């Protein structure tokens, strides 16, 4: 890490971008993580307004929607990763929603960024986040019929137990041992 003065000079461009965006979106909070990488935290219900604003401010493409599971807080963290070709800046847009399957709902951003359809279906398949307004939510995506509704990427999914039940192997496997031969 360089000292603060040099950092400030390096990230001047990023700070002006954040300033411009936060003028129009007072509900958000933004910070510079490092050179060419910025981060916003917003409430979940304002996601559509914020992404429309980002699209006006030359963030042309969405790279991914990732879901981070925080079982201790009882929350999912959704990270919308945006890339701007104009400024060459990578922006994280972070928002938190409750983790319970009936409450994990988000408004879709498919009409703003068409590519979001794929990532939303992916998040729905593996984590159980339901995106309202995306009419392809019920369409099968990656998982098979037997795994539909299990949401295998959640932290409380019994991974080893499911493998033992499905493939009928690992019956001598014990997780407490350090060395074992299967």
């Amino acid at each position, binding site marked *: 890490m360089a000292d603060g003065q040099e950092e400030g000079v390096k990230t001047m461009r990023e700070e002006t971008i954040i300033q411009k965006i936060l003028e129009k979106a007072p509900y958000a909070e933004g910070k510079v993580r490092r050179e060419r990488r910025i981060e916003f935290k917003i409430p979940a219900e304002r996601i559509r307004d914020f992404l429309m604003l980002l699209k006006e401010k030359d963030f042309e493409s969405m790279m991914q929607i990732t879901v981070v599971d925080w079982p201790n807080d009882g929350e999912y963290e959704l990270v919308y990763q945006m890339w701007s070709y104009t400024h060459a800046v990578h922006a994280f847009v972070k928002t938190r929603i409750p983790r319970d399957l009936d409450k994990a709902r988000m408004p879709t951003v498919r009409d703003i960024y068409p590519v979001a359809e794929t990532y939303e279906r992916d998040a729905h398949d593996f984590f159980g986040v339901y995106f309202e307004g995306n009419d392809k939510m019920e369409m*099968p995506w990656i998982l*098979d019929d*037997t*795994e539909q509704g299990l949401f*295998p990427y959640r932290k409380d999914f019994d*991974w*080893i137990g*499911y*493998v033992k039940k499905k493939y009928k192997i690992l019956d001598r496997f014990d997780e407490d041992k350090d060395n074992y031969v299967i």
Partner: protein
Amino acid sequence: MVDWRLFEPLFNYARKKSMWIVAFCTGCGGIEMPPLMTSRYDLERFGMMPNPAPRMADLFLITGYVTPKTLKRIIITYEMQPDPKYVMAHGSCPLNGGPYWDSYNAIKHLDKYIPVDVVIAGCMPRPEAVMDGINKMMEMIENGTADGWKRYKENYEWYKKNQDELFGEGWREREARRWLPWLMDKKKE
């Protein structure tokens, strides 16, 4: 009625020298095929070539890990091939799961679902190892020990039992019907 058994050595020689591969790459092993096909390890000198149609192929290369979804396609493709057909499993994943030994979505023993003639160990096996496997396969074809297709016919009940345990009864029809409502997309964007 001609007794063709006299010509069996000739047929075996011809089969050995003209193994066509199904161009069906599962998992990561597909990336190992271009070096095999190009000029350094030229597969063409053994008379092997990738073929997009399973009806014309003899050799089925399982390249890399197999998920249950892929296994359905693999079984259907394998049953499409005309006899005699040979299977070569490529890498440690079809053997015993490899690095995916505890994954919920990877097949651990491919042997339980379709018969395998030659298994190449490694993750990923280098092209030299694959060439060694191909040599072994040729030897086995010549002395008649590559009999996976016969085993599949004789023990079909056992293979079918294992497949049905994994997928549930009637999985072929279900898989065919599953996508029909979605193929007709009414909202064209």
